[in-house]
């Protein structure tokens, strides 16, 4: 794949940055479908690149974010330098045969895909007229899902579209009795950490943020943090997939939990507005955490 991409680059002189779940399959599964997929993909990229020498690199600095409705989707992303915006999309990686363009050149890109079928999964590649920057998929909600008033399922009216609304600070802190973690019975890490195999990697990277002595200690602190957040009314939000995010503005501790409340990660972000920029709606932890 790398070599073939390189040949595409050579033909067009443009840099193709692949960031693709569907494009780069495991190398040992070179089946016919994959070969066809590669061919179509390379054709798309070749069309993108042909005859356009000396293009300077453009990179995605944020996104792409997708806001689908049953029949439309808005795809938004940010590039590090000013560029046009284009999206190729279709029913599979092999079949991204439709395209849509952004209205203006800039660093903030917003492209509306229309004529989608409800409940259907689409693959898309965002980029400029010259470069493919990222590929991913989304599913347009079914009509019944759309009636449930989810903010992301509201019909998109027309471009230009503003960036998704970011929920600012949430449940206001409520004065309560001091939280006492010593009364808690913390379950073992294999029960509280969502992907136990990954715990050591998270501990190695973030354990020092909390002066954790061991991976188990780190996992226990993440578990306790959610109980403290509930007791102290710390800001929390939950996204459409049930992923929970909790933040303590005082200590700058941030944690994310799966739908079953097992921990995804626990760390201290460097950016003050990191939590505000996360997806999700405010949630009352008293209703969520036993």
């Amino acid at each position: 794949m790398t070599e073939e991409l390189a040949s595409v680059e050579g033909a067009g002189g443009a840099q193709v940055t692949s960031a693709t779940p569907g494009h780069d399959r495991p190398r040992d599964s070179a089946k016919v479908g994959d070969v066809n997929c590669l061919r179509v993909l390379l054709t798309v990229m070749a069309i993108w690149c042909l005859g356009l020498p000396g293009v300077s690199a453009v990179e995605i600095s944020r996104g792409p974010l997708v806001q689908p409705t049953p029949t439309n989707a808005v795809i938004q992303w940010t590039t590090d330098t000013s560029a046009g915006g284009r999206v190729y999309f279709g029913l599979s990686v092999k079949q991204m045969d439709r395209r849509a363009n952004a209205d203006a050149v800039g660093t903030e890109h917003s492209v509306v895909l229309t004529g989608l079928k409800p409940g259907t999964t689409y693959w898309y590649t965002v980029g400029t007229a010259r470069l493919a920057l990222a590929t991913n998929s989304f599913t347009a909600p079914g009509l019944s899902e759309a009636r449930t008033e989810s903010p992301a399922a509201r019909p998109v009216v027309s471009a230009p579209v503003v960036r998704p609304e970011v929920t600012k600070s949430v449940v206001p802190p409520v004065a309560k009795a001091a939280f006492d973690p010593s009364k808690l019975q913390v379950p073992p890490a294999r029960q509280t950490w969502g992907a136990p195999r990954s715990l050591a990697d998270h501990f190695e990277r973030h354990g020092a943020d909390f002066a954790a002595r061991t991976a188990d200690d780190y996992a226990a602190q993440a578990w306790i943090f959610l109980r403290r957040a509930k007791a102290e009314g710390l800001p929390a939000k939950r996204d459409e997939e049930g992923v929970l995010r909790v933040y303590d503005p005082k200590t700058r501790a941030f944690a994310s939990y799966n739908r079953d409340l097992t921990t995804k990660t626990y760390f201290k972000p460097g950016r003050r507005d990191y939590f505000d920029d996360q997806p999700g709606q405010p949630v009352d932890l008293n209703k969520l955490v036993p």
Partner: protein
Amino acid sequence: MPKKASPTFVCPVCESAVLTEPARSAKTGGGSFEICPCCGFQHGVDDDDKGITHAQARAAWRKAGAKWTSKTQPPPKGWAKTR
């Protein structure tokens, strides 16, 4: 009943199919918070907090020898052959 192999997703940084979920949710736009066991990039943290682009991370990882980074999660069979 035979157990289904768990699906893997391609890391947009190192391009290895080793992630247990998409690096970024197509539905919510949120990062997975998964640390790629191959290149070590934490999706939703290294990008959204530290502002490192995939291309920058990829270049740095390759420059450092494109090694498997997780000390506790072993690489899948045949991983070394693909590098």
